[in-house]
């Protein structure tokens, strides 16, 4: 109870009513992390104003949990106005508690998440009580009326002293074929300077997604780091991570939201490319991992909501059949043999 009232004290200093109230609670992360998220959402509101329509997420998607409440999540989807170059923005957080270290490690080895192979098993000593995983994500997808980069920010935390940060302006064009695009959005904006600020910290190390496809869609200035510190995560967030995240967000807001001239053929390629981006790194990531943390019913509900907003913009007039078809396509996709299954077959324990 006191936690809730504390949260509302904090959020009242920002006017964030256009976002889902469940989202902006961010109940499971540290105060400094929550403040950073609220800062981010506030900047977005300030800069985009009426361009981003207020949240209209239904209650059963705004917040969801599994039966034992060991997994909780919140989702918000805000659509861009008709004239805005913004298609939509998605914010979500998930909090999952695992009963034991081995259950936690099993999850990592099973999930098709970006951080699968980066789990630092030996290097970070896990607390012996239950372990947890917090994910906090924000991404913005732009319409094909612009070819400016999409935005992604994601925090992954499983220990008070360890934080993974993924932040990028995701290119909409092949950078090898379009050096001028690289120049406009990545060189002239001095993004590299901000990436280097984090790279230089002794507490940070680079982090590579296990998925080659995920790796391939990131830009050359993508921030992909794991921060390990000795109990001063609060300072780290406030003085380093927070500063960089807000600067990069500002660069995106200032450079990527305006209209751009897009030729007919270019638009065709743009739409095709965006479909791939939406499907693989974004949708599949969520679709594959939610069922591991929540009930199949919740997972389906959430992925349906995302699919609706992805497809609506892609194929106007798409019916619900499109969604069923998409689910079928996902079912038919060759499944990676989960590591725990593979080990079981070999007669070994998973951990």
């Amino acid at each position, binding site marked *: 109870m006191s936690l809730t009232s504390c949260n509302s004290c904090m959020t009242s200093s920002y006017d964030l009513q256009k976002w889902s109230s469940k989202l902006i609670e961010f109940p499971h992360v540290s105060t400094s992390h929550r403040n950073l998220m609220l800062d981010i959402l506030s900047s977005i509101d300030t800069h985009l104003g009426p361009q981003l329509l207020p949240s209209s997420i239904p209650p059963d998607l705004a917040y969801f949990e599994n039966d034992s409440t060991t997994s909780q999540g919140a989702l918000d989807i805000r659509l861009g106005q008709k004239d805005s170059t913004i298609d939509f923005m998605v914010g979500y957080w998930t909090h999952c508690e695992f009963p034991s270290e081995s259950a936690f490690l099993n999850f990592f080895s099973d999930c098709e998440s970006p951080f699968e192979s980066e789990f630092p098993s030996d290097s970070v000593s896990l607390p012996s009580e239950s372990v947890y995983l917090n994910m906090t994500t924000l991404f913005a997808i732009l319409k094909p009326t612009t070819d400016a980069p999409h935005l992604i920010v994601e925090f992954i935390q499983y220990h008070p002293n360890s934080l993974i940060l993924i932040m990028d302006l995701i290119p909409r064009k092949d950078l090898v074929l379009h050096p001028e695009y690289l120049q406009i959005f990545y060189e002239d904006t001095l993004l590299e300077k901000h990436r280097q600020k984090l790279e230089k910290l002794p507490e940070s190390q680079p982090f590579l997604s296990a998925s080659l496809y995920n790796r391939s869609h990131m830009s050359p200035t993508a921030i992909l780091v794991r921060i390990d510190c000795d109990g001063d995560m609060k300072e780290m967030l406030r003085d380093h991570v927070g500063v960089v995240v807000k600067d990069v967000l500002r660069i995106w807001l200032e450079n990527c939201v305006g209209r751009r001239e897009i030729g007919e053929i270019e638009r065709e390629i743009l739409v095709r*490319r965006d479909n791939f981006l939406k499907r693989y790194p974004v949708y599949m990531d969520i679709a594959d991992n939610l069922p591991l943390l929540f009930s199949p019913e919740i997972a389906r509900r959430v992925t349906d909501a995302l699919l609706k907003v992805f497809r609506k913009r892609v194929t106007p007039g798409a019916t619900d059949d499109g969604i069923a078809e998409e689910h079928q396509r996902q079912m038919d996709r060759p499944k990676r043999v989960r590591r725990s299954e593979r080990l079981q077959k070999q007669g070994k324990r998973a951990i």
Partner: protein
Amino acid sequence: MVSLFHHAPHFPLPTPPSPPRTRSRLRTSISCSMTSSSNPLKWRSKLLEFPHLSTSHRNLMLDLFSSIDTHLGSQLLPSSIAPNVASFENETRTSQGSLDIRLGQDESTIDFMVGCWLHCQLPSGSSLDITTLFAFLKSTTDAPHLLLEFIQSSPNSLILYMDLLPRKDLVLHPDYLQTFYQNTLIENQRQKLDKLPETQPYLSSNLYLRGILSPTSISVSINCENMEEMVRDHVGDVVKEMLRIWLESCGGKREIGEMEREILVRRDDLLKRNAVEMDISANLPRLFSPEVAERVKDAIQKVFRIESK
């Protein structure tokens, strides 16, 4: 070659002793002893001398060129490089280099292969050694090009780039990613080096160069006491395996549609122009006389078919 542009030489160390060139020490490596008497490899002997590299590094290079010759055989025409491009130096002999270019036969999917080494004695006393192997394919295939480069700025400090350079936009072509990067298990090789405590990721300061690399590219700086052992026991295996993967997966013809070929050619042109021009034009004149730099640049540009501006 590719990296000259962005690499800053390190200055803090005293002059390292240059590795002895006595062939008697190389008894264990057959390919080395062969080169002392005859040159069965069809590459220029000046190139294969690699006079400034450590023993294990030289052996590795010879192994690589030997694999290439074995696998590609007559697909590669003999070298046609002019002698004064095969070997060049500045007046004070503090900078030396060797370049060899072999063109692919008409039917081969290989356009050309470049082997190159550069040695530069810096005023501080330390030296810089760059060793490059680069294979460029024709537009009759969209298989990846091959890039390998070592940059050694001190006995204990080595930067290694190795990659199968994608010819297509991987976001738009996940099947291409699957064929050349997932099915080949090339990521395992990258991870072998990544896991070593002596390596750390190394990012080019040139964003375009960063952008041409694949998701499985090796781009590391290696710092260790015993570089000889590192190259012999770890780096060598990975580099040879990646070369083998390239030779086996990227040699065949592929079906290329008309429109695809147009994009392929445009992309390759940009790759050549931005990677090569930026690199060579900027740096050769720094290490060599304008006349030598011009000569070498011309030879390269001719084969890359880049118009001089």
